[in-house]
């Protein structure tokens, strides 16, 4: 085991309430033998927990996050979402950048990539959903963290349009923000072509 105490880099998103809510859902969902992908792993603490139970690979676009997660013993690939991965994965975990961000609010550093969800907060979630059929196993599950700031109903509709079912499996309210974890699966009964 090459686990070390994490050394936080100022350009890496540090675990917050959303991280811990998602982590507890992951611990309920993960099965032995799952092939797991964590997209945008950040500090790597969720992927590290998964690696103890299953085969897990994590991605991030931020080089500092990649180094930090790798230092914690996580198998890391530097890529945009899951662009360089083939799949299929049984379990995909994603705590996306979900804060609505206007053009003039951008500061253009690595930490911002972890937060900036575009004008409506759903730009990166939309990109994630649009390629999901390629890498999610037919019976695979996604755990996605979303905030009320991002639009919970709008996110559900976004996945429905791509042919996925979503259920809320966990939630928490902090400082006027409602955080939920969606469990998303292929809608195998849908008539979508």
């Amino acid at each position, binding site marked *: 085991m090459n686990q070390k105490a994490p050394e936080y880099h100022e350009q890496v998103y540090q675990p917050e309430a959303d991280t811990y809510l998602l982590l507890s859902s992951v611990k309920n969902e993960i099965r032995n033998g799952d092939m797991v992908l964590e997209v945008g792993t950040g500090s790597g603490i969720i992927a590290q927990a998964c690696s103890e139970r299953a085969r897990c690979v994590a991605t991030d676009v931020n080089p500092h996050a990649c180094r930090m997660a790798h230092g914690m013993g996580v*198998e890391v690939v530097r890529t945009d979402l899951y662009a360089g991965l083939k799949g299929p994965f049984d379990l995909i975990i994603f705590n996306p950048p979900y804060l609505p961000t206007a053009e003039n609010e951008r500061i253009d550093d690595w930490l911002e990539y972890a937060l900036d969800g575009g004008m409506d907060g759903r730009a990166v979630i939309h990109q994630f959903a649009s390629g999901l059929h390629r890498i999610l196993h037919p019976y695979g599950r996604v755990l996605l963290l979303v905030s009320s700031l991002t639009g919970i109903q709008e996110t559900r509709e976004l996945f429905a349009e791509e042919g996925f079912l979503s259920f809320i499996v966990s939630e928490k309210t902090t400082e006027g923000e409602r955080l939920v974890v969606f469990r998303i699966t292929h809608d195998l009964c849908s008539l979508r072509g």
Partner: protein
Amino acid sequence: MKMETIEILCCPVCRGDLVLTSFKAVETEEGTTDIITGVLRCDACGINYPIAEGIPNLLPQEKKTDQ
């Protein structure tokens, strides 16, 4: 990067298979091979994706013209 991870990687541009060349690797306590430095090549695109400090970089790369 673990040797077995090559099975689930693909070119981020064309989704084709990658060919691994290892420059520096270590054997882990679990008996697996960790690639520290190397290259993942997409023959279809003619692009080399570097592996450095044990981390493969599968961001789109500039194509280097051979001269």
